[in-house]
């Protein structure tokens, strides 16, 4: 899950880069940048959740 989270972070960033290069119209570019950030947020949530400590390891 942790690896997937970091892959999503990278994928979101590439979406943002692609939006800058591929779209010239500001609304479309902004929409794709926001989509990229949404993917990054998903990746961050996955990465954070993968770090939660299992109950048996606490203490």
């Amino acid at each position: 899950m942790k690896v997937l989270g970091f892959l999503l972070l990278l994928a979101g960033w590439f979406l943002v880069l692609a939006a800058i290069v591929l779209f010239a119209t500001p609304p479309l570019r902004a929409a794709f940048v926001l989509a990229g950030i949404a993917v990054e947020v998903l990746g961050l949530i996955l990465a954070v959740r993968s770090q939660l400590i299992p109950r048996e390891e606490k203490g």
Partner: protein
Amino acid sequence: MPAPRLTDVTTVACLFFIFLVPFAAAGLALMNVGLGRSRSAGHMMMASLCALAVAGLAYFVCGFAWQGFIGSPGHVLTLSGKSWNWIAAEPFFFRKLSFDGSATSLTALFQIFCVGLAALIPLGSGADRWRLRASCLSTGLLAAWTYPLFAHWVWGGGWLAQLGVNYGIGRGFLDVGGAGSIQVLGGLTALAVTWILGPRRGKYSADGMAPAIPGHNAVLVLFGCVLALVGWIGLNSVGAILFTGGEASGTALIVINTMLAASASALTAAVITKVRFGKPDASLTANGWVGGLVASSASCAFVSPAEAVVIGSIAGGVITFSIEWLELRMEVDDPGGSVSVHAVGGIWGLLAVGVFGQFQRPVLNVAGDSLPGAMNGIVSGQWLAQLIGVATLLGFVLPLTYGVNRLLNRFYPFRVSVEGERQGMDLHELGAGAYPEFVTHTDEFLPR
């Protein structure tokens, strides 16, 4: 293309403000010491000193070569007819750098302090369990690679700074005093280090409780806040002059904004903790103060004092709740609050440029392409440029810094042994405690 020229007055002002920057490092170091345990206090100060030394040397060897400065040679990638400047191509060891008071030489001087400041941030999150040599190695990687790369994109005329010139996205990514390049980068490295190290022993119990492990010296923490203010005044003022083409006369507004943002943030944190817990919390108020400084860094040259107060107030609220959420819900054991203060506060500061920023004067963040000030001060698309910068920090810098530190941890484990953690880092790694007289002598309690 040549670097921007500075007038004599601006050069002198710049030098004065650069010499204030080490106070920020001293402040952060003191805060990290005070927020940790007393049995690791000497170790933390030693680690801070070593981090500054390693960061300075690594930056001298190759860091500046890869960061460069506006107008310095760089490796350029051409995409759809637009040039993307990815990394600088300066020689190593400051060769070919003439120390003549030019903007380039002042940048080298300024950055050697800034990289040290960024290196201090992860130390707060790794307190009480991060081995000294491991922290030095991690600092070396940060100063030699991670920091220069991102700083080049923002301050070296790199692709983030070029967003305005190349694609008409605002004025390009703007970060006057290093909210992104120093603070968020350091804060995300702190998050990576915390994940790799894991929590301190006894921090999270099987019944779901997370007992507080309070810092050992509130005086050090609060005095660190005052020192940090002095340092931040230098940091923000120099950044505005060197990286946005500001004049020395504009620094009064920057200093006022820095002070107001910190004040509003600290008071917000104090009020929130008073309302929630019955009494204001000193450590959270201190974190709020520094969080306000961090949030002010990106926008201090482009907002009014009233807007700086709003930015600081929001920072104080966000940081206070973020610290609690990360500690209790996300199980991120971060004794110094570095992730919330520097990463969360910095991200808010960067976004605030897009929300509040007004550009009455030209902005020079790319060589030879000074973007003019707008008629009404408002620039369309600046919020998008700031979002792209934040996306780069989260989507590129976080995986990069986590990856390199994870790899390093595989070859040289970061975490101290169980016995070392129980004994305290001072005795285990340095052989002596920071407070040797803090032992209870039985004869003091015997009748005389």
